[in-house]
């Protein structure tokens, strides 16, 4: 039934093609077609007053399958993605077993084909079982179709190994996505080290635990020529390092999460474990620096670090709770609020953070030109609503944003030519 349709009267914002005008976008059998040449057999979907964009990509998602299907599955995670406006998600490889070999990538591909609602882009480990000890079979992973590499959740501490991994990854034209964290400085920390950790008496994770590795990675990018992407940058210092590196035209990119753009460490005083994530919520100064970095183009990607956990796992003492929150179904409304409505970010730059930004890292052609696979996200910037976690498609409920009042969200998601989410009549 979704085979042939045309989105009409919408404002098409396609950053990769520098396009911003009201025009139709037509889809036939999974492919974008020239809207000037379509006949009456296409169902018209009115998008008056809406923004029609290339499909949103989330560069940082934990689908938990295999290993922890009580928290999330490929089916539920991709359903959450569709509901949140995402047409493609990059699946982090720290599953159990880990996606550190071609067989695991093949499993992911098959499960995604069978149960996924949106495209699942595989990402392989840098090291075996992401243990930071021995290089994973990066060539085989490339051959199996991964578009990026990451040991997310952990960070290679051995600089020589990291250097070799980056040299080797460059041979296969793969970008390295790094979770930047120096283990000895992180210690047993559970929140940002700063005023609130000191007042609450909690073990802190200092900003330099992240910044030291960001600096290392930038130096290694210069040294090896490998593209490095800084995952979930959280501190003002990290942002400054990335900005300086990009000024020198080094192959460095960075991402920010919606929660680091909207929350600070002060929230930990509630002891709600939905404020426990890694990297931790930082100070207001860091949050402002992060917003500024997205606005000025230092950070080119917004990614959720969607990290589902069961209620049982999260409903414990703060010290004992796992890190992470879900984000797929709240990312667009939260970031529209902080960046577009509050920050006056031009909509094309905003859309780029979810489309051209991540697509460039993944070396994907990602726009609405005729002939492309039809991945489309339609935004309504004015739609006012209240977040209701009980209605989430995700299996998990670990979000601190339940009951938040928001303005703007994705109202239509088209993945690979199929309408997978629609709030339009």
């Amino acid at each position, binding site marked *: 039934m979704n085979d042939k349709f045309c989105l009409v009267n919408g404002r098409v914002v396609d950053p990769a093609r520098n396009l911003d005008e009201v025009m139709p976008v037509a889809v036939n059998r999974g492919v974008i077609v020239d809207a000037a040449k379509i006949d009456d057999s296409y169902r018209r979907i009115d998008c008056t007053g809406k923004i029609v964009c290339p499909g949103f990509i989330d560069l940082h998602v934990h689908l938990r399958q295999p290993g922890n299907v009580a928290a999330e599955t490929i089916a539920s995670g991709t359903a959450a993605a569709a509901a949140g406006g995402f047409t493609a998600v990059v699946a982090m490889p720290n599953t159990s077993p880990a996606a550190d070999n071609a067989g695991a990538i093949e499993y992911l591909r098959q499960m995604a084909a069978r149960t996924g609602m949106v495209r699942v882009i595989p990402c392989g480990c840098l090291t075996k079982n992401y243990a930071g000890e021995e290089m994973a079979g990066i060539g085989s992973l490339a051959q199996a179709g991964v578009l990026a590499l990451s040991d997310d959740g952990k960070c290679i501490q051995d600089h020589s190994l990291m250097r070799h991994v980056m040299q080797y990854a460059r041979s296969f034209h793969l970008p390295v996505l790094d979770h930047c964290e120096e283990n000895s400085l992180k210690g047993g920390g559970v929140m940002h080290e700063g005023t609130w950790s000191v007042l609450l008496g909690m073990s802190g994770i200092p900003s330099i635990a992240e910044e030291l590795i960001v600096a290392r990675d930038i130096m290694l990018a210069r040294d090896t020529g490998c593209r490095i992407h800084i995952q979930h940058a959280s501190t003002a210092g990290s942002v400054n390092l990335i900005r300086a590196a990009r000024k020198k035209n080094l192959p460095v990119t960075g991402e920010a999460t919606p929660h680091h753009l909207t929350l600070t460490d002060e929230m930990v005083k509630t002891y709600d474990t939905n404020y426990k994530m890694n990297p931790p919520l930082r100070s207001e100064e860091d949050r402002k620096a992060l917003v500024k970095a997205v606005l000025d183009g230092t950070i080119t990607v917004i990614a959720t670090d969607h990290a589902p956990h069961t209620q049982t796992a999260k409903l414990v003492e*703060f*010290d004992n709770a796992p890190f992470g929150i879900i984000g797929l179904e709240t990312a667009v409304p939260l970031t529209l609020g902080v960046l577009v409505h509050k920050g006056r970010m031009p909509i094309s730059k905003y859309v780029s953070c979810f489309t051209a930004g991540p697509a460039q890292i993944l070396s994907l052609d990602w726009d609405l030109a005729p002939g492309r696979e039809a991945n489309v996200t339609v935004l309504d910037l004015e739609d006012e609503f209240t977040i209701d976690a009980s209605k989430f498609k995700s299996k998990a409920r670990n979000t601190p944003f339940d009951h938040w009042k928001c303005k703007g969200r994705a109202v239509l998601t088209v993945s690979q030519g199929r309408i997978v989410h629609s709030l339009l009549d």
Partner: protein
Amino acid sequence: MSFTWNRKDLLSLYDLRPEEITYLLDTAEEFKKVSQRKVKKVPALRGKTVVNFFVEPSTRTRVSFELAEQRLSADIINMSASVSSLTKGETLLDTVKNIEALQVDLVVMRHSATGAQNFIAKHLKCGVINAGDGAHSHPTQALLDIFTIREKKGRIEGLKVAIVGDILHSRVARSNIWGLLKLGASVTLVGPATLVPKEFEQVGVRVCHNLQEGLADADVVNLLRIQHERQAAGFFPSINEYARFFGINEHTVKFMKPDAMVMHPGPINRGVELEGSIADGPQSVILEQVTNGLAVRMAVLFLVAGCVQK
């Protein structure tokens, strides 16, 4: 006074208004008299059940609470982590929900995780009294410290209190700071920068890394226990060096005003943070703190129990 206490939990002095703290201290004064009588028992909590749930081991605080409960005629159950189902994998919330289902009125809890009591109190109808959580809060210790200061000096407002030692890991320090600031004292934190973070200055306390400067004008000097494991973690080079630069001994005691009082929450490392002769000397109020702890805990139990819905 037309003041009424209306909290079913005592979690942290950070949550309390100054008049609530004063009311607690005034109530403790009344209960102190009970322990001076021939029959040291009142029926205030008769028919009430109190569970002392010490997930983190404790001796002196547990004994003090237990005795306070006995003197108020409460029924008492003692549980530790090793005898609870926590060792069988039950979650903390399930454990305390099960305790509550036995129609318990109050849970007195100690836990090594910061905020554990704040977390469970949200889910319980029975009262929760914090007997120490992580490095966060130990409200009854701070109340007994402040009670002792008030008893000796006649006031809190305008006094200068120095707290010396491992502030970073101390729930005693964190509780004293809030209580003292709310009642109008000024607070100086003394110790090496590894153990006394400068962030405390943001709430209006003075941070000082030199003992002589820190003690100079103090009316009260509260010493914290130095734990040996902090040395292994690299916070200071050796116990000896700590004692030399931040311990109170016959030499450094001269930095104090002659009428400054010496306090310690115990247990003391004699010869480390405090020389034995000074712990036993005329400036020390350490054993009076222990005595007052009983009165303060009776007051807390009594007031909190009065607010638990039945």
